[in-house]
Protein backbone atom coordinates (compact mmCIF):
# COMPACT_ATOMS: atom_id res chain seq x y z
CA UNK A 1 0.00 0.00 0.00
CA UNK A 2 1.05 3.57 -0.60
CA UNK A 3 1.94 6.10 2.06
CA UNK A 4 -0.98 6.83 4.45
CA UNK A 5 -2.64 10.23 4.17
CA UNK A 6 -2.94 10.55 7.91
CA UNK A 7 -0.45 9.01 10.26
CA UNK A 8 -0.62 9.36 14.04
CA UNK A 9 2.32 8.04 15.99
CA UNK A 10 2.57 7.33 19.72
CA UNK A 11 -0.35 9.53 20.71
CA UNK A 12 -0.78 9.80 24.47
CA UNK A 13 -3.35 12.03 26.11
CA UNK A 14 -3.73 12.69 29.80
CA UNK A 15 -6.46 14.69 31.48
CA UNK A 16 -4.96 15.42 34.86
CA UNK A 17 -4.47 12.01 36.41
CA UNK A 18 -6.59 10.16 33.87
CA UNK A 19 -4.82 8.70 30.88
CA UNK A 20 -7.30 8.55 28.03
CA UNK A 21 -4.91 7.39 25.31
CA UNK A 22 -1.70 5.41 25.66
CA UNK A 23 0.75 5.32 22.76
CA UNK A 24 -1.85 5.03 19.99
CA UNK A 25 -0.94 4.77 16.31
CA UNK A 26 -3.40 5.38 13.51
CA UNK A 27 -3.14 5.30 9.73
CA UNK A 28 -5.81 6.36 7.26
CA UNK A 29 -5.46 6.19 3.49
CA UNK A 30 -7.09 8.30 0.82
CA UNK A 31 -10.05 6.61 -0.80
CA UNK A 32 -10.53 4.36 2.19
CA UNK A 33 -13.00 4.06 5.03
CA UNK A 34 -11.32 3.41 8.35
CA UNK A 35 -13.68 2.42 11.13
CA UNK A 36 -12.75 3.02 14.75
CA UNK A 37 -14.59 0.75 17.14
CA UNK A 38 -14.36 0.15 20.84
CA UNK A 39 -16.30 0.12 24.04
CA UNK A 40 -17.37 3.29 25.85
CA UNK A 41 -14.32 4.97 27.32
CA UNK A 42 -11.94 3.20 24.96
CA UNK A 43 -10.63 6.53 23.73
CA UNK A 44 -12.32 6.74 20.31
CA UNK A 45 -13.67 10.24 20.79
CA UNK A 46 -10.47 11.54 22.35
CA UNK A 47 -8.48 10.13 19.46
CA UNK A 48 -10.55 11.87 16.79
CA UNK A 49 -10.73 15.06 18.81
CA UNK A 50 -6.93 15.12 18.71
CA UNK A 51 -7.02 14.44 14.97
CA UNK A 52 -9.48 17.30 14.41
CA UNK A 53 -7.54 19.71 16.59
CA UNK A 54 -10.12 20.01 19.36
CA UNK A 55 -7.64 18.49 21.85
CA UNK A 56 -3.88 18.60 21.73
CA UNK A 57 -1.94 15.40 22.42
CA UNK A 58 0.21 15.16 25.54
CA UNK A 59 2.75 13.16 23.56
CA UNK A 60 3.08 11.88 20.04
CA UNK A 61 3.04 13.34 16.56
CA UNK A 62 0.80 13.52 13.54
CA UNK A 63 1.66 13.49 9.86
CA UNK A 64 -0.57 14.63 7.05
CA UNK A 65 0.62 13.51 3.64
CA UNK A 66 4.04 12.81 5.09
CA UNK A 67 4.40 16.28 6.63
CA UNK A 68 4.43 16.73 10.38
CA UNK A 69 1.48 18.79 11.60
CA UNK A 70 0.30 20.14 14.95
CA UNK A 71 -3.10 21.75 15.35
CA UNK A 72 -3.74 24.33 18.02
CA UNK A 73 -7.45 24.52 17.25
CA UNK A 74 -10.24 22.90 15.26
CA UNK A 75 -10.00 25.76 12.77
CA UNK A 76 -6.34 24.80 12.11
CA UNK A 77 -7.40 21.27 11.28
CA UNK A 78 -10.14 22.50 8.95
CA UNK A 79 -7.59 24.69 7.14
CA UNK A 80 -5.42 21.62 6.61
CA UNK A 81 -8.37 19.68 5.20
CA UNK A 82 -9.52 17.67 8.20
CA UNK A 83 -13.12 18.16 9.30
CA UNK A 84 -15.66 16.28 11.34
CA UNK A 85 -19.40 15.68 11.30
CA UNK A 86 -20.63 15.33 14.85
CA UNK A 87 -23.32 13.01 16.10
CA UNK A 88 -25.47 16.01 17.02
CA UNK A 89 -24.76 17.39 13.51
CA UNK A 90 -24.43 20.92 14.93
CA UNK A 91 -27.23 22.26 12.78
CA UNK A 92 -29.39 25.26 13.62
CA UNK A 93 -32.81 23.74 13.11
CA UNK A 94 -34.66 26.97 12.45
CA UNK A 95 -32.47 28.01 9.55
CA UNK A 96 -32.91 26.61 6.06
CA UNK A 97 -30.41 24.05 4.69
CA UNK A 98 -28.47 26.64 2.70
CA UNK A 99 -28.03 28.87 5.75
CA UNK A 100 -26.86 25.88 7.74
CA UNK A 101 -24.42 24.74 5.11
CA UNK A 102 -22.73 28.13 5.10
CA UNK A 103 -23.12 28.86 8.81
CA UNK A 104 -20.06 30.73 9.99
CA UNK A 105 -18.75 30.86 6.41
CA UNK A 106 -21.42 32.82 4.56
CA UNK A 107 -21.18 34.01 0.99
CA UNK A 108 -21.64 37.74 0.72
CA UNK A 109 -22.03 40.48 -1.81
CA UNK A 110 -21.42 44.16 -1.43
CA UNK A 111 -24.16 46.69 -2.06
CA UNK A 112 -23.24 50.37 -1.74
CA UNK A 113 -20.20 49.54 0.33
CA UNK A 114 -22.19 47.41 2.76
CA UNK A 115 -21.84 43.68 3.09
CA UNK A 116 -24.98 41.60 2.72
CA UNK A 117 -25.49 37.86 2.70
CA UNK A 118 -25.95 36.41 -0.74
CA UNK A 119 -28.83 34.06 0.01
CA UNK A 120 -29.50 33.29 -3.64
CA UNK A 121 -25.99 32.14 -4.39
CA UNK A 122 -25.78 30.16 -1.13
CA UNK A 123 -28.95 28.36 -2.14
CA UNK A 124 -27.76 27.45 -5.62
CA UNK A 125 -24.37 26.37 -4.25
CA UNK A 126 -26.09 24.18 -1.67
CA UNK A 127 -28.18 22.56 -4.36
CA UNK A 128 -25.08 21.99 -6.47
CA UNK A 129 -22.93 20.53 -3.69
CA UNK A 130 -25.71 18.25 -2.44
CA UNK A 131 -26.33 16.98 -5.97
CA UNK A 132 -22.78 16.74 -7.31
CA UNK A 133 -20.93 15.52 -4.25
CA UNK A 134 -23.60 13.56 -2.42
CA UNK A 135 -26.25 12.81 -5.03
CA UNK A 136 -28.94 14.16 -2.73
CA UNK A 137 -31.82 16.33 -3.86
CA UNK A 138 -33.91 17.99 -1.19
CA UNK A 139 -37.57 18.54 -1.91
CA UNK A 140 -37.50 22.08 -0.64
CA UNK A 141 -34.58 24.32 0.21
CA UNK A 142 -36.91 26.88 1.80
CA UNK A 143 -38.18 24.79 4.68
CA UNK A 144 -36.34 24.99 7.98
CA UNK A 145 -33.83 22.21 8.57
CA UNK A 146 -35.93 20.74 11.38
CA UNK A 147 -38.50 19.60 8.82
CA UNK A 148 -35.94 17.37 7.06
CA UNK A 149 -35.50 13.68 7.81
CA UNK A 150 -32.53 12.41 9.81
CA UNK A 151 -30.68 11.33 6.71
CA UNK A 152 -31.26 14.61 4.91
CA UNK A 153 -30.01 16.52 7.94
CA UNK A 154 -26.94 14.31 7.87
CA UNK A 155 -26.47 15.13 4.20
CA UNK A 156 -26.59 18.86 4.96
CA UNK A 157 -24.02 18.45 7.74
CA UNK A 158 -21.74 16.42 5.45
CA UNK A 159 -22.22 18.93 2.64
CA UNK A 160 -21.00 21.65 4.99
CA UNK A 161 -17.79 19.70 5.53
CA UNK A 162 -17.18 18.73 1.90
CA UNK A 163 -17.90 22.23 0.59
CA UNK A 164 -14.38 23.10 1.70
CA UNK A 165 -12.52 22.23 -1.52
CA UNK A 166 -9.35 21.22 0.27
CA UNK A 167 -11.11 18.62 2.42
CA UNK A 168 -9.10 15.41 2.51
CA UNK A 169 -10.08 13.69 5.74
CA UNK A 170 -13.65 13.51 7.02
CA UNK A 171 -14.31 12.18 10.50
CA UNK A 172 -17.83 10.97 11.18
CA UNK A 173 -18.85 10.42 14.77
CA UNK A 174 -21.70 7.92 15.13
CA UNK A 175 -23.44 9.03 11.94
CA UNK A 176 -26.07 6.28 12.07
CA UNK A 177 -26.79 6.28 15.81
CA UNK A 178 -30.10 8.12 15.58
CA UNK A 179 -31.27 6.82 12.21
CA UNK A 180 -33.76 4.21 11.07
CA UNK A 181 -32.78 1.33 8.76
CA UNK A 182 -33.56 3.18 5.51
CA UNK A 183 -31.81 6.35 6.56
CA UNK A 184 -28.85 4.29 7.74
CA UNK A 185 -28.57 2.63 4.34
CA UNK A 186 -28.68 6.04 2.69
CA UNK A 187 -25.99 7.41 4.99
CA UNK A 188 -23.76 4.42 4.33
CA UNK A 189 -24.20 5.07 0.62
CA UNK A 190 -23.11 8.67 1.20
CA UNK A 191 -19.97 7.38 2.89
CA UNK A 192 -19.24 5.17 -0.14
CA UNK A 193 -19.74 8.18 -2.42
CA UNK A 194 -17.26 10.24 -0.43
CA UNK A 195 -14.76 7.39 -0.43
CA UNK A 196 -15.07 7.09 -4.21
CA UNK A 197 -14.18 10.79 -4.43
CA UNK A 198 -10.84 10.05 -2.81
CA UNK A 199 -11.50 11.26 0.71
CA UNK A 200 -10.13 9.44 3.70
CA UNK A 201 -13.23 8.73 5.77
CA UNK A 202 -12.83 7.88 9.45
CA UNK A 203 -15.99 6.39 10.85
CA UNK A 204 -16.71 5.96 14.52
CA UNK A 205 -19.55 3.59 15.20
CA UNK A 206 -21.01 1.26 17.74
CA UNK A 207 -22.86 -0.66 15.07
CA UNK A 208 -20.62 -3.47 13.82
CA UNK A 209 -23.16 -4.21 11.07
CA UNK A 210 -22.61 -0.75 9.62
CA UNK A 211 -18.86 -1.01 10.11
CA UNK A 212 -18.65 -4.30 8.23
CA UNK A 213 -20.84 -3.02 5.46
CA UNK A 214 -18.92 0.12 4.67
CA UNK A 215 -15.36 0.04 6.02
CA UNK A 216 -12.11 -1.20 4.51
CA UNK A 217 -10.16 -1.56 7.71
CA UNK A 218 -11.17 -1.60 11.36
CA UNK A 219 -9.13 0.01 14.10
CA UNK A 220 -10.04 -1.41 17.51
CA UNK A 221 -9.53 0.64 20.66
CA UNK A 222 -9.64 -0.79 24.14
CA UNK A 223 -8.88 1.03 27.37
CA UNK A 224 -7.02 3.83 25.61
CA UNK A 225 -4.87 1.54 23.50
CA UNK A 226 -5.01 0.26 19.97
CA UNK A 227 -5.47 -3.45 20.33
CA UNK A 228 -5.54 -4.22 16.66
CA UNK A 229 -6.24 -3.23 13.08
CA UNK A 230 -7.99 -5.75 10.87
CA UNK A 231 -8.85 -5.85 7.19
CA UNK A 232 -12.64 -5.89 7.03
CA UNK A 233 -12.69 -8.29 4.09
CA UNK A 234 -10.67 -10.95 5.92
CA UNK A 235 -12.28 -10.59 9.31
CA UNK A 236 -15.61 -11.24 10.98
CA UNK A 237 -17.77 -9.86 13.74
CA UNK A 238 -16.53 -12.51 16.19
CA UNK A 239 -12.92 -11.50 15.83
CA UNK A 240 -13.64 -7.77 16.18
CA UNK A 241 -15.94 -8.30 19.15
CA UNK A 242 -13.23 -10.39 20.75
CA UNK A 243 -10.76 -7.54 20.33
CA UNK A 244 -13.23 -4.99 21.71
CA UNK A 245 -13.91 -6.90 24.91
CA UNK A 246 -10.43 -8.34 25.19
CA UNK A 247 -11.52 -11.97 25.07
CA UNK A 248 -8.48 -13.16 23.14
CA UNK A 249 -6.16 -11.67 25.67
CA UNK A 250 -7.89 -13.55 28.47
CA UNK A 251 -8.09 -16.83 26.55
Amino acid at each position, binding site marked *: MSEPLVKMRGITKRFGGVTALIDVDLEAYAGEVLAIVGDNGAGKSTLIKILTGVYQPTEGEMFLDGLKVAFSSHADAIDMGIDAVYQTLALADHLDPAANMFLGNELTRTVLGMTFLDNKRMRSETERVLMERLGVRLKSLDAPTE*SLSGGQRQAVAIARAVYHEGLRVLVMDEPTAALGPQETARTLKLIQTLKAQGLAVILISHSLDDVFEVSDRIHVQRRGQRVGVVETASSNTQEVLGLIVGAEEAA
Partner: protein
Amino acid sequence: MNTTTQTRTTTERLEPYIAIIGPMVMILAILLFMGVAEPARYFRATNLNLILLDAALYMPMAMAMTFVITQRGIDLSIGSIAALSGIMMAFLIKQYGFSVYVAVPIALLLGALMGLINGLIITRFNVPDLIGTLAMDLVYRGLALVLAKGLVLARFPDFLTDIGRGQIPGFVPIPVLIGIATMIAGYVLLTRTYFGRYTIAIGSNPEAAELTGIAVKRHKVYAYVLCGACAALGGILLTGKLNAIQATSAPYFNLHVIAAVVVGGTSLFGGRASMLGSFAGVLLLSMMINALVTLRIEFFWQSVASGVVIVSSVALYTWMQKKDRDGAGGWLAGLKTPDGQKMMRFSAALIGLLIALLALGGLFAGTTNPSG
Protein backbone atom coordinates in the same frame (compact mmCIF):
# COMPACT_ATOMS: atom_id res chain seq x y z
CA MET B 1 -54.54 9.76 -1.06
CA ASN B 2 -54.25 12.56 -3.51
CA THR B 3 -56.08 14.96 -1.25
CA THR B 4 -53.83 14.27 1.74
CA THR B 5 -50.68 15.12 -0.21
CA GLN B 6 -52.46 18.20 -1.47
CA THR B 7 -53.28 19.45 2.04
CA ARG B 8 -49.80 18.67 3.21
CA THR B 9 -48.26 20.84 0.54
CA THR B 10 -50.64 23.65 1.45
CA THR B 11 -49.59 23.50 5.10
CA GLU B 12 -45.99 23.36 3.99
CA ARG B 13 -46.50 26.37 1.83
CA LEU B 14 -48.21 28.15 4.71
CA GLU B 15 -45.43 27.25 7.14
CA PRO B 16 -43.29 30.39 6.72
CA TYR B 17 -46.33 32.64 7.15
CA ILE B 18 -47.81 30.82 10.11
CA ALA B 19 -46.37 33.41 12.47
CA ILE B 20 -48.30 36.19 10.83
CA ILE B 21 -51.60 34.32 10.83
CA GLY B 22 -52.19 34.57 14.59
CA PRO B 23 -52.03 38.36 14.87
CA MET B 24 -53.76 38.71 11.49
CA VAL B 25 -56.73 36.68 12.72
CA MET B 26 -56.91 38.84 15.84
CA ILE B 27 -56.63 42.05 13.80
CA LEU B 28 -59.41 40.81 11.54
CA ALA B 29 -61.52 39.95 14.56
CA ILE B 30 -61.08 43.48 15.95
CA LEU B 31 -61.88 45.00 12.54
CA LEU B 32 -65.03 42.89 12.23
CA PHE B 33 -66.14 43.61 15.75
CA MET B 34 -65.55 47.34 15.43
CA GLY B 35 -67.21 47.26 12.02
CA VAL B 36 -70.36 46.09 13.77
CA ALA B 37 -70.05 47.94 17.06
CA GLU B 38 -68.73 51.38 16.21
CA PRO B 39 -67.84 51.66 12.49
CA ALA B 40 -68.38 55.39 12.13
CA ARG B 41 -65.87 56.45 14.77
CA TYR B 42 -63.38 53.62 14.49
CA PHE B 43 -62.82 53.80 10.74
CA ARG B 44 -62.45 57.57 10.55
CA ALA B 45 -59.21 58.71 8.94
CA THR B 46 -58.23 60.68 12.04
CA ASN B 47 -58.70 57.61 14.19
CA LEU B 48 -56.65 55.40 11.90
CA ASN B 49 -54.01 58.10 12.10
CA LEU B 50 -54.14 57.87 15.89
CA ILE B 51 -53.71 54.11 15.81
CA LEU B 52 -50.66 54.41 13.56
CA LEU B 53 -49.22 57.20 15.68
CA ASP B 54 -49.51 55.01 18.77
CA ALA B 55 -48.07 51.96 17.02
CA ALA B 56 -45.14 53.92 15.59
CA LEU B 57 -43.80 54.55 19.07
CA TYR B 58 -43.34 50.83 19.66
CA MET B 59 -42.09 49.79 16.23
CA PRO B 60 -38.36 50.44 16.69
CA MET B 61 -38.36 48.72 20.07
CA ALA B 62 -40.34 45.75 18.76
CA MET B 63 -37.84 45.41 15.93
CA ALA B 64 -34.88 45.31 18.32
CA MET B 65 -36.69 43.10 20.83
CA THR B 66 -37.28 40.57 18.05
CA PHE B 67 -33.52 40.11 17.81
CA VAL B 68 -33.04 39.86 21.57
CA ILE B 69 -35.85 37.31 22.00
CA THR B 70 -34.69 35.31 18.98
CA GLN B 71 -31.33 34.89 20.72
CA ARG B 72 -33.14 33.37 23.71
CA GLY B 73 -32.70 36.61 25.62
CA ILE B 74 -35.04 39.20 27.00
CA ASP B 75 -34.65 42.89 27.77
CA LEU B 76 -36.84 44.27 30.54
CA SER B 77 -35.03 47.59 30.77
CA ILE B 78 -36.21 49.33 27.60
CA GLY B 79 -38.84 51.49 29.33
CA SER B 80 -36.25 52.92 31.68
CA ILE B 81 -33.69 53.32 28.93
CA ALA B 82 -36.29 55.28 26.95
CA ALA B 83 -37.06 57.49 29.96
CA LEU B 84 -33.43 58.01 30.99
CA SER B 85 -32.13 58.82 27.51
CA GLY B 86 -35.16 61.08 26.95
CA ILE B 87 -34.46 62.91 30.21
CA MET B 88 -30.76 63.29 29.43
CA MET B 89 -31.55 64.61 25.97
CA ALA B 90 -34.06 67.04 27.49
CA PHE B 91 -31.50 68.30 29.99
CA LEU B 92 -28.90 68.79 27.26
CA ILE B 93 -31.39 70.87 25.30
CA LYS B 94 -33.05 72.82 28.10
CA GLN B 95 -30.24 73.21 30.60
CA TYR B 96 -27.07 73.23 28.52
CA GLY B 97 -28.44 74.76 25.34
CA PHE B 98 -27.36 71.89 23.10
CA SER B 99 -28.65 71.97 19.56
CA VAL B 100 -31.42 69.45 19.07
CA TYR B 101 -29.57 68.05 16.07
CA VAL B 102 -26.71 67.08 18.38
CA ALA B 103 -28.83 66.09 21.37
CA VAL B 104 -30.90 63.52 19.45
CA PRO B 105 -27.89 61.50 18.21
CA ILE B 106 -26.39 61.78 21.70
CA ALA B 107 -29.58 60.29 23.15
CA LEU B 108 -29.40 57.40 20.66
CA LEU B 109 -25.78 56.74 21.59
CA LEU B 110 -26.60 56.92 25.31
CA GLY B 111 -29.29 54.30 24.75
CA ALA B 112 -26.80 52.15 22.84
CA LEU B 113 -24.33 52.55 25.71
CA MET B 114 -26.95 51.42 28.24
CA GLY B 115 -27.69 48.45 26.00
CA LEU B 116 -23.97 47.71 25.88
CA ILE B 117 -23.87 47.69 29.69
CA ASN B 118 -26.83 45.26 29.71
CA GLY B 119 -25.10 43.03 27.20
CA LEU B 120 -21.79 43.00 29.05
CA ILE B 121 -23.49 42.24 32.35
CA ILE B 122 -25.22 39.28 30.76
CA THR B 123 -22.33 37.88 28.72
CA ARG B 124 -19.30 38.76 30.86
CA PHE B 125 -20.68 38.46 34.39
CA ASN B 126 -23.01 35.62 33.41
CA VAL B 127 -26.01 37.23 35.08
CA PRO B 128 -29.18 35.65 33.63
CA ASP B 129 -30.83 38.08 31.20
CA LEU B 130 -34.10 38.18 33.14
CA ILE B 131 -32.43 39.25 36.38
CA GLY B 132 -29.75 41.39 34.75
CA THR B 133 -32.09 43.56 32.72
CA LEU B 134 -34.68 43.70 35.53
CA ALA B 135 -32.01 45.04 37.87
CA MET B 136 -30.72 47.47 35.26
CA ASP B 137 -34.31 48.60 34.73
CA LEU B 138 -34.30 49.70 38.36
CA VAL B 139 -30.89 51.34 37.94
CA TYR B 140 -31.83 53.35 34.85
CA ARG B 141 -35.22 54.34 36.27
CA GLY B 142 -33.55 55.38 39.51
CA LEU B 143 -30.96 57.48 37.65
CA ALA B 144 -33.77 59.14 35.70
CA LEU B 145 -35.51 60.02 38.96
CA VAL B 146 -32.27 61.28 40.50
CA LEU B 147 -31.64 63.50 37.47
CA ALA B 148 -35.11 64.88 36.95
CA LYS B 149 -36.37 64.84 40.55
CA GLY B 150 -40.08 65.44 40.04
CA LEU B 151 -39.59 67.76 37.10
CA VAL B 152 -41.53 67.60 33.86
CA LEU B 153 -39.34 68.93 31.08
CA ALA B 154 -41.47 70.40 28.32
CA ARG B 155 -41.56 72.66 25.24
CA PHE B 156 -38.88 71.41 22.90
CA PRO B 157 -37.66 72.66 19.52
CA ASP B 158 -39.81 71.99 16.48
CA PHE B 159 -37.50 69.30 15.14
CA LEU B 160 -38.32 67.07 18.10
CA THR B 161 -42.09 67.54 17.92
CA ASP B 162 -41.87 67.00 14.17
CA ILE B 163 -40.33 63.55 14.56
CA GLY B 164 -42.64 62.80 17.46
CA ARG B 165 -45.98 63.83 16.00
CA GLY B 166 -45.41 65.73 12.76
CA GLN B 167 -47.90 65.06 10.00
CA ILE B 168 -47.17 64.89 6.32
CA PRO B 169 -50.28 66.53 4.86
CA GLY B 170 -52.58 63.99 3.25
CA PHE B 171 -50.28 61.16 4.31
CA VAL B 172 -49.19 59.40 7.49
CA PRO B 173 -47.46 61.01 10.48
CA ILE B 174 -43.64 61.29 10.38
CA PRO B 175 -43.09 58.90 13.34
CA VAL B 176 -44.99 56.24 11.40
CA LEU B 177 -42.48 56.59 8.58
CA ILE B 178 -39.64 56.34 11.09
CA GLY B 179 -41.21 53.29 12.69
CA ILE B 180 -41.82 51.51 9.41
CA ALA B 181 -38.32 52.39 8.22
CA THR B 182 -36.84 50.74 11.34
CA MET B 183 -38.99 47.66 10.79
CA ILE B 184 -37.80 47.38 7.18
CA ALA B 185 -34.22 47.91 8.30
CA GLY B 186 -34.80 45.19 10.90
CA TYR B 187 -36.11 42.83 8.24
CA VAL B 188 -33.04 43.38 6.06
CA LEU B 189 -30.82 43.01 9.12
CA LEU B 190 -32.50 39.74 10.06
CA THR B 191 -32.45 38.08 6.66
CA ARG B 192 -29.49 39.56 4.82
CA THR B 193 -26.68 40.17 7.29
CA TYR B 194 -24.28 38.17 9.42
CA PHE B 195 -25.88 39.63 12.53
CA GLY B 196 -29.36 38.40 11.65
CA ARG B 197 -28.19 35.01 10.47
CA TYR B 198 -26.12 34.45 13.60
CA THR B 199 -28.94 35.74 15.80
CA ILE B 200 -31.18 32.94 14.55
CA ALA B 201 -28.39 30.37 14.75
CA ILE B 202 -27.56 31.33 18.35
CA GLY B 203 -31.18 31.11 19.40
CA SER B 204 -31.76 27.92 17.48
CA ASN B 205 -28.75 25.97 18.68
CA PRO B 206 -26.15 27.80 20.80
CA GLU B 207 -23.75 24.82 20.85
CA ALA B 208 -23.83 24.48 17.08
CA ALA B 209 -23.30 28.22 16.71
CA GLU B 210 -20.26 27.99 18.97
CA LEU B 211 -18.95 24.95 17.05
CA THR B 212 -19.19 26.67 13.68
CA GLY B 213 -17.03 29.47 14.98
CA ILE B 214 -19.65 32.15 15.58
CA ALA B 215 -18.73 34.69 18.25
CA VAL B 216 -21.84 33.97 20.32
CA LYS B 217 -21.20 36.45 23.12
CA ARG B 218 -20.30 39.29 20.80
CA HIS B 219 -23.46 38.87 18.77
CA LYS B 220 -25.52 38.73 21.95
CA VAL B 221 -24.05 42.05 23.02
CA TYR B 222 -24.87 43.51 19.58
CA ALA B 223 -28.53 42.61 20.08
CA TYR B 224 -28.69 44.38 23.43
CA VAL B 225 -26.93 47.43 21.99
CA LEU B 226 -29.50 47.54 19.20
CA CYS B 227 -32.25 47.18 21.77
CA GLY B 228 -30.83 50.05 23.84
CA ALA B 229 -30.51 52.35 20.84
CA CYS B 230 -34.05 51.57 19.72
CA ALA B 231 -35.35 52.14 23.23
CA ALA B 232 -33.69 55.56 23.14
CA LEU B 233 -35.36 56.19 19.78
CA GLY B 234 -38.64 55.25 21.47
CA GLY B 235 -37.87 57.75 24.22
CA ILE B 236 -37.14 60.46 21.64
CA LEU B 237 -40.38 59.75 19.78
CA LEU B 238 -42.30 59.82 23.07
CA THR B 239 -40.71 63.12 24.09
CA GLY B 240 -41.58 64.59 20.72
CA LYS B 241 -45.09 63.20 20.76
CA LEU B 242 -45.96 64.62 24.20
CA ASN B 243 -43.58 67.59 23.88
CA ALA B 244 -42.68 66.68 27.46
CA ILE B 245 -40.70 64.08 29.36
CA GLN B 246 -40.45 63.05 32.99
CA ALA B 247 -38.67 60.33 34.92
CA THR B 248 -41.78 58.17 35.23
CA SER B 249 -42.55 58.21 31.50
CA ALA B 250 -42.77 54.98 29.52
CA PRO B 251 -43.63 52.73 32.46
CA TYR B 252 -44.84 49.58 30.72
CA PHE B 253 -42.86 49.77 27.48
CA ASN B 254 -41.03 46.55 28.23
CA LEU B 255 -44.10 44.38 28.67
CA HIS B 256 -46.00 46.02 25.84
CA VAL B 257 -43.13 45.49 23.41
CA ILE B 258 -42.41 41.93 24.52
CA ALA B 259 -46.12 41.17 24.19
CA ALA B 260 -46.20 42.59 20.66
CA VAL B 261 -43.18 40.53 19.62
CA VAL B 262 -44.45 37.31 21.17
CA VAL B 263 -47.95 37.81 19.78
CA GLY B 264 -46.25 38.20 16.39
CA GLY B 265 -44.97 34.65 16.56
CA THR B 266 -41.33 35.14 17.58
CA SER B 267 -40.60 32.24 19.87
CA LEU B 268 -39.50 32.92 23.45
CA PHE B 269 -37.50 29.68 23.17
CA GLY B 270 -35.32 31.25 20.51
CA GLY B 271 -34.52 30.63 16.88
CA ARG B 272 -37.86 31.53 15.40
CA ALA B 273 -38.05 35.17 14.36
CA SER B 274 -40.73 37.04 12.49
CA MET B 275 -40.21 40.71 11.79
CA LEU B 276 -43.51 40.91 9.92
CA GLY B 277 -45.16 39.27 12.91
CA SER B 278 -43.69 41.84 15.28
CA PHE B 279 -45.04 44.59 13.04
CA ALA B 280 -48.49 42.97 13.08
CA GLY B 281 -48.24 42.47 16.84
CA VAL B 282 -47.53 46.15 17.44
CA LEU B 283 -50.46 47.12 15.21
CA LEU B 284 -52.74 44.63 16.94
CA LEU B 285 -52.06 45.98 20.43
CA SER B 286 -52.50 49.58 19.31
CA MET B 287 -55.72 48.76 17.48
CA MET B 288 -57.09 46.97 20.49
CA ILE B 289 -56.33 49.78 22.93
CA ASN B 290 -57.81 52.27 20.48
CA ALA B 291 -60.91 50.10 20.12
CA LEU B 292 -61.41 50.15 23.89
CA VAL B 293 -61.13 53.92 23.91
CA THR B 294 -63.54 54.21 20.98
CA LEU B 295 -66.03 51.98 22.77
CA ARG B 296 -65.75 54.27 25.80
CA ILE B 297 -64.74 51.39 28.01
CA GLU B 298 -63.14 52.44 31.25
CA PHE B 299 -59.38 52.97 30.88
CA PHE B 300 -58.56 50.40 33.52
CA TRP B 301 -59.90 47.57 31.38
CA GLN B 302 -57.04 48.11 28.95
CA SER B 303 -54.58 45.98 30.85
CA VAL B 304 -57.16 43.21 31.23
CA ALA B 305 -57.75 43.22 27.48
CA SER B 306 -54.02 43.30 26.67
CA GLY B 307 -53.45 40.26 28.84
CA VAL B 308 -56.32 38.34 27.29
CA VAL B 309 -55.16 39.14 23.77
CA ILE B 310 -51.60 38.05 24.53
CA VAL B 311 -52.62 34.76 26.11
CA SER B 312 -55.12 33.90 23.40
CA SER B 313 -52.85 34.71 20.47
CA VAL B 314 -49.90 32.83 21.91
CA ALA B 315 -52.18 29.85 22.66
CA LEU B 316 -53.56 30.02 19.12
CA TYR B 317 -50.05 30.18 17.77
CA THR B 318 -48.77 27.17 19.70
CA TRP B 319 -51.89 25.26 18.70
CA MET B 320 -51.18 25.97 15.03
CA GLN B 321 -47.55 25.01 15.55
CA LYS B 322 -48.46 21.59 16.89
CA LYS B 323 -47.87 19.14 14.08
CA ASP B 324 -49.76 16.18 15.48
CA ARG B 325 -53.35 17.12 16.00
CA ASP B 326 -54.81 13.76 15.00
CA GLY B 327 -55.84 11.37 17.70
CA ALA B 328 -55.95 14.07 20.34
CA GLY B 329 -59.74 13.73 20.25
CA GLY B 330 -60.64 17.37 20.79
CA TRP B 331 -59.27 19.64 23.42
CA LEU B 332 -61.64 18.41 26.12
CA ALA B 333 -60.30 14.86 25.81
CA GLY B 334 -57.42 15.79 28.10
CA LEU B 335 -59.86 16.09 31.00
CA LYS B 336 -60.69 12.40 30.85
CA THR B 337 -57.16 11.22 31.55
CA PRO B 338 -56.32 10.33 35.17
CA ASP B 339 -54.09 13.35 35.43
CA GLY B 340 -56.80 15.58 33.99
CA GLN B 341 -59.22 14.19 36.55
CA LYS B 342 -56.86 15.05 39.38
CA MET B 343 -56.47 18.57 38.04
CA MET B 344 -60.28 18.88 37.78
CA ARG B 345 -60.73 17.78 41.37
CA PHE B 346 -58.01 20.15 42.54
CA SER B 347 -59.55 23.10 40.71
CA ALA B 348 -63.02 22.19 41.97
CA ALA B 349 -61.73 22.04 45.55
CA LEU B 350 -60.03 25.42 45.22
CA ILE B 351 -63.10 27.11 43.77
CA GLY B 352 -65.39 25.33 46.24
CA LEU B 353 -63.32 26.55 49.17
CA LEU B 354 -63.42 30.09 47.83
CA ILE B 355 -67.22 29.96 47.42
CA ALA B 356 -67.61 28.50 50.90
CA LEU B 357 -65.50 31.27 52.45
CA LEU B 358 -67.40 33.93 50.51
CA ALA B 359 -70.69 32.49 51.71
CA LEU B 360 -69.42 32.37 55.28
CA GLY B 361 -68.26 35.97 55.09
CA GLY B 362 -71.56 37.08 53.56
CA LEU B 363 -73.54 35.25 56.21
CA PHE B 364 -71.80 36.89 59.14
CA ALA B 365 -71.25 40.26 57.48
CA GLY B 366 -71.55 43.23 59.82
CA THR B 367 -72.14 46.86 58.97
CA THR B 368 -69.93 48.31 56.25
CA ASN B 369 -67.21 50.76 57.06
CA PRO B 370 -66.35 52.88 54.02
CA SER B 371 -62.67 53.72 53.77
CA GLY B 372 -63.30 57.07 52.10
